[in-house]
């Protein structure tokens, strides 16, 4: 190691990940200490690294001492969760000390009194900002501008709709937004969240509740809305850049993703309640769709059946991967109507939540419509089963499918039962 350039030692120390290891090993020899002081670019403080009886004050001193010995820190990560509460002064000191060089900041912790991190941290170099703590974020547009910020991630924060909109206008290069357990506060004058960004590429929102979201994002490629989010109205005004749409376990009364769906390759919708005709009308424009997954979707109108295989075959001629989980007890004939085949489908996944004999017939019918099938996956839920009759039916269905698939030896068959 003695012939290795000190910068490489700095790289190795940076890769160690935890400040505890870095600091400890800097006591090895002069060169390693120099590497720590001058060439360390990544530093991370995690709750689990320190003895359990360490106090918040001791941690503050430790972090301050460690950070202030470095020069040119590029990535700083402080993850204390709810275990410790830091005072505002040291936190502000850390942010100001690293302001000139920091490119990535990940801060997960409570501060008393609240520190408005966006205000304090590096604005001209920061490319990634990840904040996770119960705090209220305010944005003053007059002097705040994150010229390099590409990735923004907010978890467990409270922010007003207005401030979030403003935050976007001060991040001219933003590409990725993650919102996780974010409370968006609206007011009478601003009842909707309006985000406008010509550079935004991905949005990932989980457990977010807001009445109305309007997105002006001409380059948005990926939109994921997940997990118990409650969004009354969502409208995406784009130019057809959307490639990947994923909706899982949300409540949304109105969803609009734009008229141009030429680039949409993946639609993955699960545990979602939809107004069928409108939903189908919206997605049927995605003529280049490669992957379609409609899993445990519920229909607002009782009379609505589901999207049948004929409609799928006609609307999505390039489909390669199809995953459907419907309650197929009624409407089997409708589900299998027509004769168009899904020429390009290689992977077919079919699932049941409530087993019925029709499921077996549906599987047979679907397989016949996929002449180039390579893989079949049957998904079932066993944990809700109450009667012997149901268990027997699962056995029957499984053995029927296996018997059928002996004819299709080139197809790989899997069963996934939860």
């Amino acid at each position, binding site marked *: *190691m*003695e*012939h*290795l*350039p000190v910068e*490489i030692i700095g*790289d*190795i*120390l940076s*890769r*160690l*990940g935890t400040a*505890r*290891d870095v*600091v*400890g*090993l*800097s*006591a*090895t*020899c*002069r*060169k*390693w*200490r120099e590497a720590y002081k001058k060439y360390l670019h990544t530093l991370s403080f995690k709750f689990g690294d320190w*003895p359990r009886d*360490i106090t918040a004050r*001791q941690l503050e001193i*430790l972090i301050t*001492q460690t950070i202030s010995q470095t020069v040119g820190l590029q990535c700083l990560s402080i993850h204390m969760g709810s275990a410790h509460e830091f005072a505002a002064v040291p936190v502000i000191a850390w942010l100001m000390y690293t302001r000139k060089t920091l490119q990535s900041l990940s801060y997960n912790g409570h501060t008393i009194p609240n520190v408005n991190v966006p205000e304090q941290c590096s604005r001209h170099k920061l490319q990634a900002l990840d904040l996770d703590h119960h705090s209220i974020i305010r944005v003053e547009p007059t002097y705040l501008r994150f010229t390099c910020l*590409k990735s923004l991630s907010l978890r467990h924060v409270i922010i007003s709709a207005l401030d979030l909109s403003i935050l976007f206008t001060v991040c001219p290069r933003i*590409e*990725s937004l993650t919102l996780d357990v974010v409370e968006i506060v609206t007011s009478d004058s601003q009842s909707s969240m309006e985000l406008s960004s010509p550079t935004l*590429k*991905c949005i990932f929102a989980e457990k977010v509740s807001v009445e109305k979201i309007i997105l002006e994002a001409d380059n948005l*490629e*990926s939109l994921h809305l997940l997990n118990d989010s409650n969004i009354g109205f969502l409208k995406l005004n784009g130019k057809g*850049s959307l*490639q*990947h749409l994923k909706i899982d376990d949300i409540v949304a009364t109105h969803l609009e993703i734009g008229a141009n769906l030429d*680039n949409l*390759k*993946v639609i993955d919708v699960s545990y979602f309640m939809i107004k069928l005709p409108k939903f189908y009308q919206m997605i049927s424009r995605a003529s280049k769709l*490669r*992957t379609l997954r409609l899993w445990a979707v519920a229909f607002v109108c009782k009379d609505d059946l589901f999207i049948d295989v004929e409609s799928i075959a006609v609307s999505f001629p390039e489909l390669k991967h199809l995953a459907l989980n419907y309650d197929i007890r009624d409407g089997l004939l409708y589900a299998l109507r027509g004769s168009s085949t899904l020429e390009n489908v290689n992977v077919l996944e079919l699932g049941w939540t409530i087993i019925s004999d029709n499921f077996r017939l549906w599987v047979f019918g679907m397989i016949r419509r996929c002449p180039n099938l390579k893989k079949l996956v049957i998904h079932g839920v066993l944990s809700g089963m109450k009667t012997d009759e149901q268990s027997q039916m699962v056995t029957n269905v499984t053995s029927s499918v296996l018997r059928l698939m002996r004819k299709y030896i080139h197809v790989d068959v899997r069963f996934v039962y939860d």
Partner: protein
Amino acid sequence: MGKTIKLISGDGEMFEVEEAVAFQSNIIKSLADEDNADDCIPLPRVDSQILSKVLEFCRKHANSPSVHTKFAAIPSELCPKHDGSAAGASSSESSSAHSETCRACYDAVMKLVQWDLEFVKVDLDLIHHLLKAANYLDIEDLMFMAVEGAANAIRGNNPEEIRKLFDLENDFTPEEEKEILKEYSWLDDPFEP
């Protein structure tokens, strides 16, 4: 087999490899450009045992994009399953969107990463040599993985153990050492898990 490059290790052994393999090294690439195609490129500071390990790595990475220094992304052009859409195909961010939607690319990248991690699960002495070789030959991906391997190997060791492993001298003066220990007095037993 396409165009090949001849390399001579420090202990005189000749290795003939395809251009795509050898050109992972920016140094070899620039030397080959200048020299006559038939000449051998001498690498006096790398002996044959290490060079063969380095070339093993380069062979694996020859037709993959750099998966480590960027965001583990494969540009659409290289994906055999996609038609290579023109829209922003070369930027790493839209490529990572590609990798997300393209199972084949994602799996290929993950496999390569796994292979690399196994490759650097070797004793520190070998890692030391790989680090020096990667630095000397300027091979980005190998440097990245060798640093990862070194970090994994030294994690959890204390300074005394590191000194023994790398044959390093404790060149602090007693006063300096006292200063350092005072700063980090909270590390009474620094490496107690």
